[in-house]
C-alpha cells in the first residue's frame, strides 16, 4: 500500500534553495496538504514526489518502490510511479473532447475499448458531467473543466493522487462546493491524497495532516487542529487562522515559584501545561482572537477601536494601552468607536514564544492579577 517517504530531500535551482532537507512520511490513505506562502517550495515538493522535478538530493519512496535516490542514481519517470496529478489550471487538452481527455490515460494502459468506455462513463456519472461528454474544454465553465480534470485523473484509479492548488481558479462558492466533493472523494476512494494550497482555510478543512513550509524548510507536520492550537513557532501561528493570532510582547519572570508575565502594563500569572523550562525573559505571548473575551467581568480595561460585525461573528479590534489586538465574538455585536470595554484572556492554550528564536516554549493559561 502506498506510503510515501521523503528522506533528506533537497532541491536547488542554481543557488536558490527551493526545498531544504525535507523529511516526511505520508501514511496510506492520508489527505496531506502542503501549505505555505507562495515560493515556499510546496509545489516543488509535490512535483518532486510526482517525478516532474528532479530533486538535488535525497530519497523518495512510494509504497515499496524507491522512485528516487540521488546517491544510487534512481529516478523513475512519472509514468512509472502509478500516480495521478491534478494541475492548477486543469491542463485539459484543448483539442480533445471530454471523452477523449478522460479516455487518453486508459488508452495508454492498453485497456480494451469497451472497458475504457464503461470506465469513462462511470467517472462522468461520479462527477455529474455526463451531458458534456462530447464537448471541448473551451466550451465548459471553470467548475465543469475542473470536474473533467478530476475525472481524467481518477479514471486510471491511481493509488496516490497529487493536486496542485486545484481550486484556486474557481470562484468562492464553487470552491467551497468542490472542497466538500474532494473530501467525499477521498473517503470514497482508497487513495492517498497530497494537496498543495496556499489557502490555510482549505488546508484546515480538508487535510488529515498539514505540512506547513516556509522558504523551503518544513515548519510543522501535524493534524490541522494541532497546527492550529499548538503551533511550533510564530510563523505557523501567524500563517494559520483568520483573523490571525495576536502577538503580544511580554516579560517573563519567576516570583514565588510562579511564572509572572508583564504585558499591557499589567501582571499576569502563567500556568504552564507543558513541562518545558521557562528560563527566558523576553517572550511573545500568542493569543487566538477567540480567546480574548469581551465581558463586563473582564480584568483588562480597554476601548473598542473598531468593530466589524459579519453576522455570524464580530471581529473587534480592541485597544489595550497602546496595543491593538483582535478579538472574535460570536454573534453580531456592534461597539461604538472608542467605547470603553472590559476583556479577558480565557484559554489554556495561550502560547509563549521565545522572542529571539520565535519558537514555541510553552502553552498554558493566563490569569490577570487583580490590581
Amino acid at each position, binding site marked *: 500500500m502506498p506510503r510515501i517517504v521523503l528522506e533528506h530531500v533537497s532541491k536547488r535551482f542554481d543557488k536558490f534553495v527551493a526545498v531544504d532537507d525535507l523529511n516526511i512520511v505520508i501514511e496510506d490513505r492520508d489527505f496531506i496538504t502542503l501549505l505555505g506562502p507562495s515560493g515556499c517550495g510546496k*509545489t516543488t515538493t509535490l*512535483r518532486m514526489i*510526482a517525478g*516532474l*522535478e*528532479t530533486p538535488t538530493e535525497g530519497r523518495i519512496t512510494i509504497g515499496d518502490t524507491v522512485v528516487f535516490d540521488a546517491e544510487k542514481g534512481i529516478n523513475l*519517470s*512519472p*509514468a512509472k510511479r502509478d*500516480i*495521478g*496529478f491534478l*494541475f*492548477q*489550471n486543469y*491542463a485539459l*487538452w*484543448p*483539442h480533445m473532447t471530454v471523452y477523449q481527455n478522460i479516455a*487518453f*490515460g486508459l488508452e*495508454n*494502459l492498453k485497456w480494451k475499448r469497451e472497458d475504457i468506455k464503461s470506465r469513462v462513463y462511470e467517472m462522468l456519472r461520479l462527477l455529474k458531467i455526463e451531458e458534456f461528454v462530447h464537448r471541448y474544454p*473551451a466550451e465548459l465553465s471553470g467548475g465543469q473543466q475542473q470536474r473533467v480534470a478530476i475525472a*481524467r485523473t481518477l479514471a*486510471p484509479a491511481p493509488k496516490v493522487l497529487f493536486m*496542485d492548488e486545484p481550486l484556486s481558479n474557481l470562484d468562492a462558492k464553487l470552491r467551497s462546493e468542490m472542497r466538500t466533493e474532494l473530501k467525499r472523494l477521498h473517503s470514497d476512494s482508497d487513495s492517498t491524497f497530497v494537496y498543495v494550497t496556499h489557502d490555510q482555510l482549505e488546508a484546515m478543512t480538508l487535510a488529515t495532516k498539514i505540512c506547513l513550509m516556509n522558504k523551503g524548510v518544513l515548519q510543522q507536520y501535524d493534524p490541522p487542529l494541532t497546527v492550529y492550537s499548538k503551533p511550533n513557532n510564530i510563523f505557523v501561528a501567524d500563517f494559520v487562522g483568520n483573523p490571525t493570532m495576536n502577538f503580544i510582547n511580554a516579560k517573563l519572570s519567576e516570583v514565588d515559584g510562579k511564572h509572572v508575565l508583564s504585558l499591557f502594563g499589567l501582571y499576569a500569572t502563567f500556568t504552564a501545561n507543558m513541562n518545558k523550562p521557562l528560563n527566558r525573559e523576553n517572550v511573545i505571548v500568542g493569543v487566538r482572537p477567540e480567546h480574548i473575551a469581551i465581558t463586563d467581568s473582564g480584568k483588562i480595561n480597554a476601548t473598542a477601536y473598531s468593530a466589524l460585525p459579519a453576522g455570524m461573528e464580530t471581529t473587534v479590534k480592541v485597544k489595550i494601552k497602546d496595543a491593538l489586538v483582535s478579538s472574535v465574538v460570536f454573534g453580531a455585536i456592534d461597539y461604538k468607536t472608542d467605547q470603553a470595554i472590559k476583556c479577558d484572556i480565557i484559554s489554556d492554550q495561550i502560547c509563549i514564544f521565545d522572542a529571539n528564536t520565535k519558537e514555541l516554549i510553552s502553552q498554558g493559561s493566563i490569569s490577570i492579577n487583580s490590581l
Partner: protein
Amino acid sequence: MKSLNKNKTIFNRIGTFFTKPANCMLVIFAILLTALTLYPLLSMLREMFVVHAGIEKTLTGLKKGNFTLFHWTKLFKGGEWSMTNYWIPFLNSTLLGFGGAVLGIMIGGVIAWLMARTNLKHKKLIGSLFLFPYMMPAWTMALYWLNMFQNSKVGAGIVGVMEGLFGLCMPEWFVYGLFPCIIVTGLHFGPFAYILIGGILQNMDATLEESAVILKAGRLKIVRRITLPIIMPAVLSTFLLIFSSGFASYTVPMFLGGAVRFFTLSSKMKAMFNAGYTGQAYIIGSTVILMGWLILTINQKYTGRKRSFTTVTGKSGQVSFIDLKRFNTPISIALIVIITFFSIIPLIVFAIQTLLRSPGVYEFSNLTLEFWLGRGESSYKNGMVGGILFNKTVWSALGRQFLLSITAALFAGTVGLFIGYAVVRRRGTKLAQYVESMAFFPYLIPAISFSTIYLAISTTKTFSFLYNSFFLIALVSGVKYLPFASRGGINSMLQISTEIEEAGIVVGVPWYKRLFRLLFPIQKTSIMSGYLLPVITCMREVDLYTLLVPNAHFLLTTLLLEFNQTGYDQYANAVTLLIIVIVLILNSVSEKLTGASVAKGVGGGASFGGN
C-alpha cells in the same frame, strides 16, 4: 423651432466628438489612410483597363488612356503567351511558396522543438547563429548560393567556390531555378518558423504534456497526440505566412532564375513592365495581391477560431527537458556545423569574392583589395571608379538609403504611435476599427505589388510630381511598414491603463502633455523599437524599391542589383557584405537599446496576422 433644436443637438454632438483628441486623430487617420491605401488600389484597378504609352498603343491602335480589355484578352486568351507569361510563373510562384514553406517549417520546427523541449547542448550558440539567415535579407542567401555553386558549365559560366576549390560542378537545376529558390526561401524563413513555433512551444502550458506523461503516454505519442495538434494552428499560420512571402518573392527568383528564364509572378511582372506591357504587368501584380489577401483571410479565419489552444496559461517554464543522452553531442555539433554553413560561411564567402581580381580563380596571386580600396587603377569601365569604399556612387546611394530609412521610420513610427493611442482610446467604435484595419491593410500586399500600386498613381497626371521622386519612395516605405508600427503602437498603448491618462485629465493636463509627458515615457522602449525596426528593414529592402527608383544608382540595394545583373560580382558581393554588416550592427544596437530585434520584431509582427 423643433428642427432648429435638432440641428443644434447635432452640431453639439459633433462639437463634443471633436473635443476628444483621439476622435480628431481617428478622423485624420481615416482620411489619410484611405488616401494612402484605398486610392492607390483603385487606381491600379484602372490601369488594368487602359492603354499605356509605347507598345500597347501600337498593338491596340488606341490612344493612351483609352478603355481597353486588351490586357486581359492577351494575357488570358490561352496559347503560349498566356502560358509563359501567366500560368507558368503562377505555377512557379505556387511551387516556390509551397516548397519554401514546407522546408522552412521542417527546419524551424525541428530546431524549435529541440531548443524548447530537449536538453540539447550549446542552445545559446545555435539559437543566435540560426537567426542569422533571417536577419540577413533573403536575397543575400540567393547570392551566397550562386557564389558557392555557380560553375563553368551553367549560366554565365563563372566559377563558384565549390568548383574553384573542390572541382565540384553542380547541374543546372541545382544552381538555377525552382530548386535553389525553394532552398533559399526555406533557409531564410526557417528561423522565422523557429521563432513562431518556438514561441508557442515555450508559452505552451507544460502541464498539458506533463499530464500526458503521468497518464503514461510515451514521448512520441505525446508529440503526436498532444503537442502537434496544439501547435498546429500556429504551424499552419506560419505555413501560410511563408507561403505568401514565397509566392510574392521577387529578388530571390531574380537572382537565381534569370539565367534559366525561371519566372515567378513578381519577376514576370517586372519583366512585363520592362517590355512595355504595363497593363498586363498590373494584372499579374494584382494576382499576387489577391493571393496575399486570400491567404491572410484564411489565416485569420483559421487561427482566429482555434486560438484558444495557445492562450491557456499556467505554470510554464517548469517543463522537464527530454534527455537526448548519447545523441546530444552529435546532434548539437551537426546542427552547429550546418547552421554555420548558412550563417557565418556566407559572410566569409562574400568577403572572399570581393577579393578576387578575376572572379572564379581561387588563388592567392589573384587576391586584391582593389574592389574595396582601389582608387581608379581598376581596368573596369563600368562607371565605377575604384573600390567601393572610395566610390561616390556607393556612398551617395548609401546616404540616400539611410535618409530613406530614417524618413520612413519617422513616418511609420509616429503615425503608428498616434494610431495606437487613438485606436486604443476609442476601441470598439466603428471609426477605430476602420483605422486599425486600414493601417493593417498594406501588410496584405506583397512589397513588389505595393510598389506597383504606387507606381500606378505616380504615372497619373495628377500625381506626376511623385514620379521618380525620393518622396514617393519614402512614402511607400512608410506606409508599407505602418502595419508593424501601428500594431506596436496599439499593443504598447493597450498596456497602459486608462486611469493613468484620466488622472491627468482630472487635474486638467492638456492632451498633448498627457501624451508626451505621461503615456509615451511609460512605453519608451517599445516606442523606440517602433522607430528602429523600420530603419533596419528599410536598409535591406529591395523588392519595394526596384520599380520605383529613378535609376539603379539611387539606392544601395538597387545598385547591388545593377552590379549583379551586369556581372560585376566583386562589387555586388562587397555591397552585399556592406548591407549585411550595417543590418547586423543596427540590429544589435536596437537589441541593446530596446530589446527588440528584427527577428523578434518581424516574428512578433508577422504572427499578428493570426490575431
